[in-house]
């Protein structure tokens, strides 16, 4: 049984980890090595002489090339990353602000039809982007929002509200009301009590909510590629858009870019690791 357990763990590690290792290796290759017909998996200082050698010359050129505009693109990887960052940041900011206020309302006040409203909020999460993208596209054309950062900021904000409301409501419900009541007795206004007492208490919840909203906006592809195919293009749409390039996919740059792209997400995830479960289950499961 013990042995079996370890076999499962090792297999699981390999299954999850090997593709990531391969991605790391690909990012320090030249393109020819990345698509070589002979496996090349040992980084070396110099290019090997034998054509079927498993060694390849390690290089950081793929990372350097992220700064230049690749054929078939109008901007460099960093500019696309900046788009992703701006869109992700502002949509997260807006989602968390709106979501927290809304969750506070649901948590502390009597809202007629509260349960129905909450489930309505949740149900919006199930909408497949491709099923609603046409009306959104036509709407965005009317307001000239197609291909703008603002357009995606608004869309991702709305898209993530359900997550933010549900997560924040869970966190706010855990903060005893007595705290605010005491503050009000001390002379704070309701709003003052919210800002000075409730929000500081809920800071972990806010951080967790922000991370999950950011991840979702960061990785989104369906809306990004259909609404922002030529302007304010985010990283997933940029990489996917290189498909069918006559020059072929620049695999080392894709791998290098993907590593850079996932780094902040992994870092943030590590920060909220003890709340991971809560985040992925809309706050319904607490650890």
């Amino acid at each position, binding site marked *: 049984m013990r042995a079996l357990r370890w076999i499962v763990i090792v297999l699981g590690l390999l299954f999850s980890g090997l593709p990531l290792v391969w991605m790391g290796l690909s990012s320090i290759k030249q393109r*020819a090595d990345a*698509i070589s*017909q*002979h496996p090349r998996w040992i980084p070396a200082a110099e290019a090997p002489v034998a054509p079927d050698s498993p060694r390849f010359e390690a290089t950081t050129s793929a990372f350097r090339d992220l700064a230049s505009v690749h*054929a*078939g*693109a*109008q901007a460099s990887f960093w500019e696309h990353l*900046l788009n992703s*960052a*701006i869109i992700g*940041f*502002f949509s997260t900011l807006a989602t968390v602000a709106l979501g927290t206020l809304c969750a506070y309302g649901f948590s502390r006040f009597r809202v007629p039809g509260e349960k129905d409203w909450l489930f309505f909020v949740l149900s919006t999460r199930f909408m497949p982007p491709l099923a609603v993208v046409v009306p959104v*596209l036509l709407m965005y*054309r009317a307001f*000239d929002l*197609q*291909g703008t950062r603002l357009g995606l900021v608004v869309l991702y904000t709305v898209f993530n509200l359900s997550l933010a409301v549900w997560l924040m409501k869970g966190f706010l419900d855990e903060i005893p009301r007595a705290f605010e009541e005491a503050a009000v007795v001390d002379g704070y206004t309701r709003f003052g009590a919210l800002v000075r007492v409730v929000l500081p208490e809920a*800071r*972990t919840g806010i*951080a967790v909510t*922000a991370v999950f909203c950011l991840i979702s906006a960061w990785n989104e592809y369906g809306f990004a*590629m*259909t609404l922002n*195919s*030529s*302007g304010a293009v985010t990283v997933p749409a940029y990489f*996917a*858009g*290189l*498909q*069918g*390039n*006559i*020059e*072929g996919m620049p695999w080392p740059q894709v791998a290098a870019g993907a590593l850079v792209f996932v780094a902040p997400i992994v870092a943030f995830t590590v*920060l*909220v690791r003890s709340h991971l479960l809560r985040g992925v289950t809309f706050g319904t499961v607490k650890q």
Partner: protein
Amino acid sequence: MKLTALATTLFLAASAALLTACGDDPAKSAGADGSAPQRLVVWWFQWAPADGLQELGREFQKESGIEVVVEQIPLGSYQEKVFLEFGAGRTRFDIVIGDSQWIGRGATKGLYLELTDWLPTVVDLATIHPRAAKYLCEYPEGSGKWFAAPCETDAVGLAYRKDWFEDPAEQAAFQARFGRALQVPGTWQEFAEVAEFFQRPDAKRFGCSLPSDRSYDGLTMGVQNLLWAFGGRWHAETSNRVVGELDTPESAAAIEFYKRLVKLGPKGAERLDYGQVLESFTNGSTAMILNYFAFFPGIHAQFGDRVGFAVVPAHAGRRVASLGGQGLSISTKTPPAQQELAKKFIAWFLQRRVQEQWITKPAGFTANADILASAEFRAKTPYNAPFAESVDTMRDFWNVPVFNELLSVTQRYVGMAVDGELPTEEALKQLAIEKERILKDAGLL
């Protein structure tokens, strides 16, 4: 709480950085107002000819002061991006170099500016090769209504490893096996035999590769070279009828033959886009490829004398090359001042002296019939002569407004036949019915 402190610091740092970044976000407008320098934006997909056009654009700027920017979009998403732009109020491009099939949609939906009256004032239409005019510029075909000026004229051709073909050991082995000399294949049967001969997967050496991608139009552009040669057709000669025209034994034989060919390539040759076909050749593993001539200058630059070029093989004396290439169309959704700039550029581009320059640029191929016919042009490179010959035989897929629906079903059903998911005859039968339904819905039948 450490976590919160760290998160707050990160958050503040990120906000500061992003707000700074937002501040100097450059306003990217095409600059149509009088004071700004004149700038013309051209969209094309990413490939060598677009680099050539950009070089010509710089010459144009020297002569006229108008800057020309050729933006290159990956082919895989080019169509969607262009039509999403056309759907918006104003396109980011002034000129779009649209794929030949798009012209029906561009013309009937009011996206391409009609050039019928203007074009004859800047160029003698008789100098434009009739097949280029018919397929790249006019809609409906041969109607005399012009919606584009020819830019890149292109056709499918054959590139092969001359050094392998000329290797005495290979020649002897081929002679022993097939009882004839190892030569550049003139017929599809010969092509298959040569491919079979060079197919050595254990040595990572392969016979041939052909466009076969399912995403946009690769498979269709690959198959139709055989389809027409074998006596098949997409639709009736004089009408859009498909049933009884496409589902014939000749078409089925062509697809069956194509199925045989994809097995004689690298693994995964059942779905290679143009770039991957090219790659299978440039990585030195494949003996012959079928691809557009516009890719061949790059191959020649890399391999020099070790490669040769030829027209596509024939069958029973019939040889038809799949048309490629694109025309320059002016967007109706760009301000009139920009349209005038676009006309200036097109007029300049179509001049004989510029066309002569165009053919010296990377992968630039002209539609100028006089140049194509000249001995000087044909002798200039190893690929020019087969190219000029191919232009005389090239044909195109549908270019009606619903071309993409027709293309979608073609890709899907021919794909199912090639994959063996449906028997070929059955796939063609269903495809013909589907196509007639689409054409009827569009009022074209």
